[in-house]
């Protein structure tokens, strides 16, 4: 090849992960519990959005129903700990397994369609889960939800009841999961998913099972959402119908769109940012939904490919003469 060639992607991945971790450690040391709590939740939504990017940005399938997986894992955790007294760590694992298995079971059906049909199918599927959460009072507590979810039990003397330690736990989990997702997207799978989005007929003509690949992207994004859901349930020590609400799915989809589909960091930062915005906005006004709607409209009209390509162009513009290596944006 043309000499030593440091892959652009791994610099960006490693640099980003280190930056997030470093910022996180700083925050853990410097912020007071209230802001740490905000940061924890922000990281949760950042993770959710990043996972969704695998399906939306890489594979090209937009979903309005992924809160189903986010909430399901949380509900399983809540039921297993509050009703059956299971160890929180075990319950968390089971919650993730259950939600991911649910995704795996639904995936073969879901990928039979794509585009708008897929979007609306996921909306409907998410509502099935929401409906079950609302109506099945005996298990889910209905509109009251399930309170009293314990924090994970002590590890090496570290108590996660403390906001600071829980934040660090969240930080570690988020960084690890994002690193895993990056690893997957930088390998053959990422390339194949981009192929699915750009020309699925071409990919089929190369012998790839496109439906199978879509299922993989579906399950991966559901897995990440379920991990985020566990963290949220632990943090709030409560699970309710909010966690399976379509508005959560919509906000996460917006994060991907605003952040820049296919960039992973764009949706990550946007997921975090949108949550911060929500905190500020709801402190000042009741009209967060209105603002969110306007953001959607603005995003679609003004920044169709998201913010990340704009950021990259600003950064790359400083370094001329670089051969453009496309990373599969919108």
């Amino acid at each position, binding site marked *: 090849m043309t000499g030593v060639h440091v892959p652009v992607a*791994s610099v960006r991945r490693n640099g980003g992960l280190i930056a997030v971790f470093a910022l996180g450690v700083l925050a853990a040391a410097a912020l007071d519990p209230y802001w740490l709590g905000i940061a924890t939740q922000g990281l949760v939504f950042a993770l959710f959005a990043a996972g969704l990017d695998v399906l939306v940005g890489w594979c090209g399938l937009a979903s309005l129903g992924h809160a189903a997986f986010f909430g399901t894992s949380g509900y399983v955790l809540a039921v297993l700990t509050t009703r059956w007294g299971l160890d929180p760590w075990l319950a968390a694992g089971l919650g993730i397994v259950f939600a991911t298995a649910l995704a795996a079971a639904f995936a073969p059906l879901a990928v039979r369609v794509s585009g708008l049909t897929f979007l609306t199918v996921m909306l409907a599927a998410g509502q099935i889960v929401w409906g079950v959460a609302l109506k099945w009072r005996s298990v889910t507590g209905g509109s009251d939800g399930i309170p009293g979810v314990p924090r994970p039990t002590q590890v090496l003397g570290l108590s996660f009841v403390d906001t600071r330690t829980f934040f660090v736990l969240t930080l570690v989990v988020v960084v690890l999961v994002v690193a895993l997702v990056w690893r*997957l997207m930088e*390998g053959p799978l990422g390339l194949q998913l*981009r192929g699915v989005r750009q020309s699925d007929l071409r990919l*089929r*003509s190369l012998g790839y099972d496109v439906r199978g690949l879509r299922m993989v992207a579906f399950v991966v994004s559901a897995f990440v959402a379920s991990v985020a859901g566990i963290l949220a349930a632990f943090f709030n020590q409560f699970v309710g119908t909010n966690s399976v609400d379509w508005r959560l799915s919509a906000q996460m989809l917006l994060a991907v769109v605003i952040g820049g589909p296919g960039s992973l960091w764009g949706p990550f930062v946007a997921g975090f940012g949108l949550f911060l915005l929500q905190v500020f906005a709801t402190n000042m006004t009741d009209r967060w939904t209105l603002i969110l709607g306007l953001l959607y409209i603005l995003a679609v009209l003004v920044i169709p490919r998201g913010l990340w390509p704009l950021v990259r162009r600003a950064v790359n513009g400083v370094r001329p003469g670089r051969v453009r290596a496309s990373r*599969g944006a919108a």
Partner: protein
Amino acid sequence: MSPAAERPAELGSRANGGHAVVLEVDGLCKSFGGLEAVKDLSLVLEEGQRHGVLGPNGAGKTTLFNLICGVYPVTSGRISVCGFDVTGEPVHIRVRRGLGRTFQITNLFQEMTVLENVLLATTAETGDSRSYLRRLESLPESRRKAEEHLGALGLADLAEHTVDQLGYGQQRQLEVALALALKPRVLLLDEPTAGLSQVETAAMTDLVRRLPATVAVVMIEHDLDVIFNLVDTMTVMHRGQLLCTGAACDVRIDPRVAEVYLGR
């Protein structure tokens, strides 16, 4: 996914001359609603054979390709690749049985680099496509093969360029490279010289001539000088049906063909 592992060692029935039959199409029919696009078309292809498909526009040539590849389901008839009956199989299964194809309208991964395009093909061929946890940089064999394919086509310098930065002629060549990288037994070329300049056409013709002898080639082509130089046998289609088939030189002088097609 490793195509080589899924192909039989024995390539199906052996026709006259002791050459294996790599593609067999039997009584193929395709109707779209009331329109009969292909009617009772049959074809047998041996290993390494070079076969042309001609016919006026609308004769059903690309439809035939789409049927063989599995893009359209057949209304009736049978298709088998290397001895495997693939009549009901989806596209990707047929490809794994040994079928390769280029498209009439260039169909590449526009936003990826040239290298990434070919890597998708070579990772499939080497089986690296399932190594999900390894980075692309650490798949040396797939990378080497990709670079080789690009080098053979003279596209090595363009490896890091995205496809949409390539000229049309280069894109057409890349199409062929992608199909070849899978080491198909049968290659379907859909109008490979369409839209190419004289120079590019010569380069493409040369490329096709240099294709490995183990690959059977079926070519749709409008440029008569090009096709008569490249194929041994030929099928002429008219209105979805087989008009005549046989050795190129015989078809060339067949009066029915002249009437329908050559005498335009």
